[in-house]
């Protein structure tokens, strides 16, 4: 509950005045599930031309033991298509500092990935078929981090309801091919189109994972010569109800439209990360 008050507070202060008038009007009830999810993907995974963030992931076991992952993430949206490029630089744990990971993501086909292992000075391509596997041992999958192909699920709008004091669409997504979940419910904010909560159900139809957006901040950045506000989920949690394990993620130093270049996302920079962005 606390998180939702906070969201409301932040949003009411900064988001609403900065949003264009057309966007404040929620679309009519006839809006289709797929359309909502498309807007969600745009809001959650692709805002701005590019993005940079310091990410701190805490992996917490059921009995409270913690493992830390900290990394810097760069994202660049291809202006000519829906392709995206990601660059991850790992800082912690200490013995993996300097490991880098690069993803070229395409909306409807498998992405290309590379990893650099400094201890043996090797760059290796990594198979991308494991989009549903755990990202660095966390409760998030690769798809949870960078978005899932919209066409892989059938989406339907179940109902509209308040979550806390935010008006939400509740969308049900059912995978077309068998995967680790058989049903996902998303509570999507009618104004920001950010997911406030997601529930994943497994093959036994039991609730297994729950995503919550715990804090949403508006990040102001230059966009087309004026200041624009980007509502961003800066704290999120994925909890596995079966294992009691959870992963808490905090985004800090979030910046949009910083002028990243396509050239940064190449194998050369995997070995020598671009100093301008990653110190």
């Amino acid at each position, binding site marked *: 509950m606390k998180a939702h008050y906070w969201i409301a507070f932040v949003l009411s202060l900064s988001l609403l005045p900065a949003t264009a008038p057309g966007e404040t009007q929620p679309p009519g009830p006839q809006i289709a599930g797929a359309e909502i999810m498309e807007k969600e993907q745009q809001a959650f995974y692709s805002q701005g031309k590019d993005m940079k963030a310091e990410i701190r992931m805490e992996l917490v076991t059921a009995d409270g033991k913690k493992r830390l992952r900290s990394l810097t993430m760069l994202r660049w949206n291809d202006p000519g298509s829906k392709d995206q490029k990601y660059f991850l630089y790992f800082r912690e744990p200490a*013995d993996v500092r300097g490991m880098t990971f690069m993803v070229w993501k395409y909306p409807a086909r498998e992405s290309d990935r590379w990893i650099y292992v400094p201890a043996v000075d090797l760059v290796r391509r990594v198979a991308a078929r*494991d989009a549903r*596997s755990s990202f660095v041992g966390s409760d998030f999958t690769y798809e949870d981090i960078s978005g899932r192909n919209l066409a892989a699920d059938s989406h339907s709008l179940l109902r509209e309801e308040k979550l806390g004091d935010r008006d939400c669409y509740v969308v049900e997504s059912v995978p077309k091919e068998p995967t680790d979940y058989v049903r996902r419910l998303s509570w999507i904010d009618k104004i920001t189109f950010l997911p406030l909560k997601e529930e994943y159900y497994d*093959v*036994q139809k039991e609730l297994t994972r729950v995503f919550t957006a715990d804090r949403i901040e508006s990040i102001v950045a230059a966009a087309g010569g004026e200041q624009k506000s980007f509502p961003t989920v800066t704290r999120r949690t994925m909890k596995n109800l079966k294992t009691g394990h959870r992963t808490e993620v905090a985004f800090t130093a979030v910046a949009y439209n910083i002028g990243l270049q396509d050239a940064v996302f190449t194998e050369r920079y995997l070995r020598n990360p671009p100093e301008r962005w990653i110190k």
Partner: protein
Amino acid sequence: MLNRLVQFAIARPKTVIGAAVIITILFGSQLPKITTDTDPKHMLPITSPVRQYNDQVEREFELHPDVLALGIVNERGVVNKQTLGRIADLTSQIQRIPGVIVRDVTGFTTIDDVTVQGGELAVRPLLERVPQSEEELASLRRKLFENPAFMNRIISPDGKATAIYIPIEPTANGKEIADRIRKLLPDRSDGDRFYLAGDPVARDTFGAEMFRQMGLFSPIAGMVMAIALWFMFRSVLLIAANMAAAMISIIWSMGLLIWLGYPVHIMSSMSPVFLMAIATDTVHIFNEFFFRYREVGKKKQAVADAMAAVGTPVLYSDLTTAVGFASLAITSIIPVRIFGLAVAFGTLVILLMSFTLVPAILMLLSEKKLDKSIEVADNKAIGAGAPIAGKASFLSRLGEVCVRRGKIIAALGCVLLVISAAGIYRIRVNNNMVHWFKSNSAVRSADREMNQRLGGTSTAYLVVQSPNENAMKDPAMLREIEGLQRALEKAPLVGKTFSVVDYVKWINRVLHNDDPSFYRIPDSLEKVGQYLFLFGMSAKPSDLNNVVDYPFQKANIILQLKSWDAGAMKDVLAKTAAYLNAHPLPAGATVKPAGIAYFNLVWNQEVLWGMLSSFFAGVALVLILLFAQTRSLLWGGLSFLPLLFTIAIIYGVVGLTGKDFDMPVAVLSTLSLGMAIDFAIHFVARFRKRYGESADLQDALIWTVARPGKGIFLNAVLFALGFSVMVFADLTPYITVGVFMASIMLLSSVTSVIYLPGLIQLFRKQLLKGEKR
């Protein structure tokens, strides 16, 4: 006190019977709440350090305590289209069964395989889609045999067997899940054979069987005893009253046990049979009553006289029995403790019934009917008189032999004792839960097949613990862990070892373009750390969590053992200690065992020492009671000898035949104390009374062998018949208990009747010095 009870029962029989019925209904109302518990871990209290450490290890490494294993065997090799298709289908169907832990079902389609192909690293399930071409099949075969992590776990060295490991929730019922899995198996084998094994199957199948056996054998034992009673005494009333006392004690004790919230365990499931046998003690009262009634002809007087005559022996024989069972309470093994106390309580209920309900029932009989039934009984007895008379004369001849050949009999006894001692020396203490099933049972043959082909169905953990974080990334530490694994694998019963080292070496090889010469531990902590991070970037988190803890301070070596015998784990511990002696771990790191195999070993030792101590406590208590009853050290000791002799012979036979000394056998030694001593109590008491009257030693001995001796044999036969039906059980502990109780009772009756006269004759000077003439 007892006298007053009897007086009250005689005065107000209806009140007594009514009260008994009401209390019985009260206890009986608890029976539907019955639950069973067959988890061997619950043998030790929740506070025991072994159990607590075991729970901690399972939590820390995200290990599942309950795992089923579905073995799939095909003599043409399991890597073929049909079998692989079935494995894929079965795995996904099994994952849908409620209670199965979906994420950690491990088989071809779910196990992570780290590979490099065309320079591209991949962490993927080994079998993503069923291969259609011969080429794909060959590639799968290569993957299976190249990665040592798979060998003996999900593929047998000959390629003919694989397994799906199915962890289940601790609250789920293993047998129910096993039954649902069996329903999924294809009707036509087409060369595939399926075996379902694992601790939860054994446990919960056992629990279900236990109910069946309890429901089947308790009534059968009751019927057999009733029929035997009929042939001995020819009285329906006597049988009915005996059964009433037995049923009431069973309902009270089981009701109390369930009321207090205890589940029924293998041992307590046998208490009805024990209580039924113990209830035959009431026979003495009826016998004496009929006898007295013939003499005095007045019901009330006959009841009072009979109770006065047999009251003391009944009191003492029931007390010794209760004490024998209650002494089980000092063991640390919970189910044994509960069983001992439940039967002790039941015995006291029988004792109470003997002094209340039984005289009350007798009081309700009309004297007319009584006269009639005595007439019938007398007629029948005359009709059947010839063989009984013949037996009596045989017994008196036996008595003469015993008295005359006392020395020879004593010498023979000594020889038997020496042989028994040799046998006892060879006793092997072992608890093997799988051996609780018969050799040809589904559970046991599945276990045997899986142990022959794959790594083994019994699991142990060796937890390496360092004082420092990140110690498990240190190549020096990893080399020692690897060395320990190789040393352990030399043990014939260790089928598989697995640790974080196996991942590190494999990733080293895969990163270096699958070059087999890189299948080794790298030389720096950074490399190990980055390899494991790389592995953890896409592998199932549990892959890594099963073998290292979060701060990399502890590593878990997972062992698969091919036997549930405690000896297999003992060997592992010895080899571990020897290795660590020669190769101390960096920074003083230690190794601590856990897992079900280690648990069985600890429990095994508890069984031996726990039973030994409760045996000696039982001996002491029974001796004290004997001294109290005979009011003499010598006579008390003498009364004890036949029992000691019986136990020595029985355990001598156990040692000589090589039967495992397991929990049921161990428990029997203690509880047989209180039951088998009854015969000697009767013999000595009757002899001393007779000797006091006649003062002719030989005559008194022969009379005792012939008259009370007959009663003793009848009693023993009744006991033995009741227990012998358990021989037909499907579960070996029941068979063991049946055979042992029957032979202990028969043997102790024989030793009482044969050895006591000989011993009394031999030591007459010392024994008879204080006897009044």
